[in-house]
C-alpha cells in the first residue's frame, strides 16, 4: 500500500473524506518523514511542531462539511522561507533576516489557511531567491533526493525536495526567473509560475517586483491546479493583481496546437534530455495534438535582458535592509558603519554581487545602454510571443538545458545563470508557464528526472493544465 505521505493532494483529500485516514495521521506521516530525512536533505530550515489546533480544526471541518470542505483542508504543505506566516521566522535563507519574525500573513498564506491547509515548516532556498541550485542559502545547501550528490535546482530547492522526498504533500515556491519550474524539473515535480498578477505578492519577500510570482510545486498537474485556484485572486494589498473577473471558466480545446521553436534547441541542450523531449512530443501528436514549428527570434536576448532588469529591481528592493529597524543589526562607530557592517555581514556573496550589478545598470551613464534597452527587449519579446500565440495554444521547451548538476559544478556566475535560459522569458512577458515531468535520463547510475516546459498566453493557465495532463498520460503509457 502507498504510504500516506506519498499521496497527492487529490488522493489525500479523498482518503480524509472517506475516513480512511485522519488529518492527524496524514500530518504525522509527513512530519515523521521530514524529521527523519531533514538532516540529510536540508529541505526545511524549520519544522513547525505545534500545529495541534490547526490539525484538529481541519479535522472538524472535514467531519462537518464533508465534500463541501476545500480540497486543501487538512493537507500538510511546505512554504518557502520568503513567504510570511505571522509569528514565524521568515529569513529568505539569509543571515540578514535570521531573527526576523513575520508580523503578518502573506495573502498566499491567508488563502491557504482559509482553505484549511496545514503548514509543516519553512523550506530552504537560495538567499533572497537568488540562485538556481539552493547552494546560495546561508544555512547550507538542499540536496536532490534523486541523487544526493546533485542540486535540487533553485531557488525553491527546499520546496522541491520536501515534496519530491515525500516530506510534504505539496509546497509553495516563488518564481522570478524559473525558481519554481527549474527545481520542479530537477526533482520530478510539477511546477507552475502563474500569470503575473494572478497571485498576490503581498507578504512575499520581494526580489524582482515586476517578475515575482508565487506558485505550487506538486506531484500532479491536478494538484497544481487545486493550489493555483486557491491562492489566486485580486488583492487590494497588491495593486498589480488582476481584477477578479478576468479568469473565465472555460473548457480548453480537446486537442492543442503546440508550438516548438526548433532553432533554439539546436545547441546547448543535453542530447539525452532532447531525446526524451522529442519522444514526448511524438507521443503528444499520437494523442491528436499538433506540433507547429514557430520562431521566436529575440529569445536569445531574454536572459541578458533578465540579468539587467532583475538585479536593478534587487538593488532597489534590498536597499530596505539597513540594520536599523529589524533584521541583522551590526554596530560600528558611525551610522554609516552600522549600514555597511549590517549589509556586508548580512548578505551573502551572490546577493551582494547582484546588488552591485543592479546599482551599476541603474547608474547615470549606463541606464540607457542597459536598463532601458532591457525594458524595450522585454516589450519585443512580449509582442513576439503574442504573435506566435495567434497560431498556437502553447509553446514547448525543455525546462532546463540539462539534468540536475553536481554541487559546485557551476561555480562561475554566467554558467549558473544559463540554467534559466528557457524559463526567464515567461517572467519577462508575464505569461504563465508550467514544468511537468517528461521522463528521466541516466547519469552515473542515477535516474534523473527532466521536465517539459509550456508557456501559454496571459491568463490561460487552463491550457497549461490541459497539456500538462496530456504529458502525464503519455508518460505513464511510455513507461
Amino acid at each position, binding site marked *: 500500500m502507498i504510504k500516506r505521505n506519498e499521496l497527492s493532494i487529490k488522493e489525500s483529500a479523498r482518503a480524509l473524506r472517506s475516513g480512511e485516514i485522519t488529518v492527524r495521521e496524514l500530518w504525522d506521516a509527513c512530519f515523521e518523514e521530514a524529521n527523519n530525512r531533514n538532516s540529510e536533505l536540508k529541505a526545511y530550515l524549520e519544522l513547525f511542531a505545534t500545529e495541534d489546533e490547526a490539525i484538529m480544526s481541519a479535522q472538524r471541518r472535514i467531519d462537518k462539511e464533508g465534500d463541501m470542505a476545500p480540497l486543501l483542508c487538512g493537507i500538510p504543505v511546505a512554504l518557502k522561507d520568503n513567504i510570511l506566516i505571522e509569528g514565524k521566522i521568515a529569513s529568505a535563507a539569509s543571515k540578514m533576516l535570521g531573527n526576523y519574525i513575520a508580523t503578518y500573513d502573506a495573502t498566499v498564506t491567508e488563502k491557504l489557511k482559509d482553505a484549511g491547509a496545514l503548514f509543516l515548516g519553512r523550506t530552504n532556498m537560495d538567499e533572497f531567491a537568488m540562485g538556481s541550485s539552493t547552494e546560495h542559502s546561508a544555512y547550507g545547501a538542499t540536496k536532490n533526493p534523486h541523487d544526493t550528490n546533485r542540486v535540487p535546482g533553485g531557488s525553491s530547492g527546499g520546496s522541491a525536495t520536501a515534496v519530491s522526498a515525500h516530506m510534504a504533500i505539496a509546497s509553495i515556491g516563488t518564481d522570478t526567473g524559473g525558481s519554481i519550474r527549474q527545481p520542479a524539473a530537477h526533482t520530478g515535480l510539477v511546477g507552475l509560475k502563474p500569470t503575473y498578477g494572478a497571485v498576490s505578492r503581498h507578504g512575499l519577500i520581494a526580489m524582482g517586483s515586476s517578475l515575482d510570482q508565487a506558485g505550487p510545486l506538486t506531484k500532479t498537474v491536478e494538484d497544481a491546479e487545486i493550489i493555483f485556484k486557491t491562492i489566486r485572486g485580486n488583492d487590494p494589498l497588491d495593486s498589480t493583481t488582476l481584477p477578479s473577473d478576468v479568469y473565465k471558466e472555460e473548457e480548453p480545446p480537446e486537442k492543442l496546437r503546440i508550438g516548438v521553436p526548433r532553432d533554439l534547441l539546436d545547441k546547448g541542450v543535453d542530447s539525452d534530455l532532447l531525446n526524451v523531449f522529442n519522444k514526448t512530443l511524438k507521443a503528444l501528436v499520437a494523442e491528436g495534438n499538433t506540433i507547429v514549428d514557430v520562431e521566436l527570434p529575440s529569445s536569445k536576448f531574454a536572459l541578458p*535582458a533578465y*540579468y539587467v532588469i532583475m538585479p536593478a529591481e534587487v538593488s532597489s528592493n534590498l536597499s530596505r535592509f539597513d540594520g536599523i*529597524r529589524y533584521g541583522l543589526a551590526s554596530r560600528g562607530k558611525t*551610522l554609516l558603519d552600522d549600514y555597511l557592517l549590517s549589509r556586508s555581514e548580512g548578505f551573502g556573496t551572490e546577493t551582494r554581487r547582484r*546588488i*552591485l550589478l543592479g546599482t551599476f545598470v541603474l547608474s547615470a551613464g549606463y541606464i540607457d545602454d542597459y536598463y532601458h534597452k532591457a525594458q*524595450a527587449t522585454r516589450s519585443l519579446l512580449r*509582442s513576439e510571443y503574442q504573435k506566435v500565440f495567434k497560431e498556437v495554444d502553447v509553446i514547448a521547451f525543455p525546462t532546463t538545458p540539462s539534468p540536475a548538476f553536481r554541487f559546485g559544478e557551476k561555480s*562561475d556566475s554566467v554558467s549558473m545563470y544559463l540554467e534559466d535560459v528557457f524559463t526567464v522569458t515567461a517572467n519577462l512577458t508575464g505569461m504563465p508557464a508550467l514544468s511537468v515531468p517528461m521522463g528521466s535520463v541516466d547519469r552515473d547510475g542515477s535516474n534523473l528526472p527532466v521536465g517539459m516546459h509550456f508557456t501559454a498566453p496571459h491568463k490561460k493557465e487552463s491550457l497549461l493544465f490541459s497539456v500538462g495532463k496530456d504529458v502525464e498520460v503519455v508518460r505513464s503509457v511510455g513507461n
Partner: protein
Amino acid sequence: MVTKEEVEKLSELARISIKKEESDSFIKDFGAILDYVGELNSLTLPSELSDVKMSLHNVFREDKDPTPSGTWTKKITDAFPEKEGNALVVKQIISHD
C-alpha cells in the same frame, strides 16, 4: 570591463563593503556578466518599440479606512534592535565637534 575603482564606487553607493580578498573575484565576475548582458547591444529594436513605454498604468485605491493607531506598534517595535519605550534608538547623526 569594470575597473577596481568602479566596483569600489558601486559598493559605496550600495552601502556594501567588499573585503580585499573578494575584490578580484568580484571584478572578474562582473566583467563576465557585463560581457554577457552586453549582447543586448547587438539587438536592433524595431522602430515602434525603441521608444516604448511599457503598456503599464497606475492603480490607485481610495485613501480611506486607516488602520487604527497602535494596531501594529508592538509587533514592529519588538523587532527593533534597540529601543526606548516605543522609540527606535539610532546613532547621533550630527555631531557638535
